[in-house]
């Protein structure tokens, strides 16, 4: 079912998103890498809730431009365990705007101390349609043809998938280096599909200023990520797979809003030529305390 008619005008949605971000800019803060696909070993602080939108804008060959957004609710259950809910949707020019499904994921750090390489175990369940275009990971032989079909046809395909990731991440001086190994299984009949993501990032300046500032170098984090598919169990090859490289920039605004931007470039003929990503995040501190009185009693 289309919520709005064809010839979608995306400007009201963009204005709404910017207004929401400005409205939320009140008192909290966030500090994370500006990765869109790669995960580092940073988990959400316990009791905090981060709300983030990750939007991908692209134009598959032979199709029209689309914008796909994942609304991410990330909660720190424990210092070693983060749980997330994603709600996905997309709008395709000259087609429709649709909700494309949800994802539930959990990330767990099995080691309680920081090491040279820090493993994180990741488990996700996805209930999405074939019209999902958020490209939060690339696995198997995913390609731009998967993103080019009309929404009316693509949404008939339902995907119930389990996804496992092994996240390895290191903080070396001020650099973060993260490697993700992905295995995804359609719970129906399809084979295991594999993929990877690699990211590096660092703040432009290490020392913090003693005064409040908006455009200080330490408020910006720059980096790059690369990601792609590695085939599946029936065809374990990189032939016919998609691969991307994407520079990243993240900007920590003064009152807790974080913006990130990444232009991605496809490296193979099956990849999208370009995909632009925009992220807006806001973190609510200690939301568990909202439901407790000062003496620790639940209200």
């Amino acid at each position, binding site marked *: 079912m289309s919520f709005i008619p064809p010839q979608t005008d995306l400007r009201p949605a963009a204005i709404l998103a910017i207004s929401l971000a400005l409205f939320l800019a009140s008192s909290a803060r966030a500090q994370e890498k500006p990765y869109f696909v790669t995960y580092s070993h940073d988990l959400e*602080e316990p009791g905090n809730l981060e709300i983030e939108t990750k939007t991908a804008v692209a134009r598959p060959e032979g199709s029209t431009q689309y914008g796909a957004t994942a609304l991410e609710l990330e909660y720190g259950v424990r210092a070693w365990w983060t749980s997330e809910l994603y709600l996905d949707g997309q709008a395709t020019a000259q087609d429709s705007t649709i909700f494309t499904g949800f994802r539930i994921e959990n990330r767990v750090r099995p080691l*309680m101390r920081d090491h040279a390489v820090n493993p994180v175990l990741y488990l996700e369940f996805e209930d999405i349609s074939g019209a999902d275009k958020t490209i939060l990971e690339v696995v198997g032989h995913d390609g731009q043809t998967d993103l080019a079909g009309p929404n009316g046809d693509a949404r008939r395909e339902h995907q119930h998938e389990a996804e496992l990731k092994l996240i390895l991440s290191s903080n070396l001086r001020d650099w973060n280096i993260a490697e993700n190994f992905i295995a995804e299984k359609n719970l129906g009949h399809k084979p295991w599909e594999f993929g990877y993501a690699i990211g590096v990032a660092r703040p432009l300046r290490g020392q913090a200023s*003693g005064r409040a500032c908006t455009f200080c170098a330490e408020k910006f984090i720059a980096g790059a990520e690369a990601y792609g598919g590695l085939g599946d169990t029936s065809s374990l090859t990189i032939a016919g797979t998609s691969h991307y490289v994407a520079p990243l920039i993240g900007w920590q605004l003064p009152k807790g809003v974080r913006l990130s931007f990444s232009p991605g470039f496809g490296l193979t003929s099956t990849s999208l030529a370009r995909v632009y990503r925009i992220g807006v995040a806001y973190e609510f501190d200690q939301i568990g305390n909202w439901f407790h009185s000062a003496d620790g009693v639940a209200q």
Partner: protein
Amino acid sequence: MKPSHRNLPSILSIAFCAALAVAATVHPHWDHVPAKDHARVSPLAGQPEAVAAGARIYSEHCAECHKADARGDGHKRPSLRSEHLRSAADGDIEWFLRQGDLAHGMPSWSSLPAEQRWQLVAYLKSIQ
């Protein structure tokens, strides 16, 4: 039923271990800090601006749990104005910030640049 005196050593041992476990939830063990980390000297020692910057970092990352006055919440979030921190070397505190104590709710701050961790150390030492 009254416990017999023969069980007293076992009861005391269990109570002692329990007390240690409770203490472990409140204070990091500085004696677990590797010698090379313990011996590290802050590159920002004696710089007043490091304290000011550390105060800003504290308000952004730490105050939500340990409160703006660093006295904690009296429950799970300990006060950072304590003899335990007063007695710690700069290197001990920087090591603990980097490691965290995930099992007891303290995140690792290894994602902060090293200079910012030292600025935070400067601030924490200044409020003791």
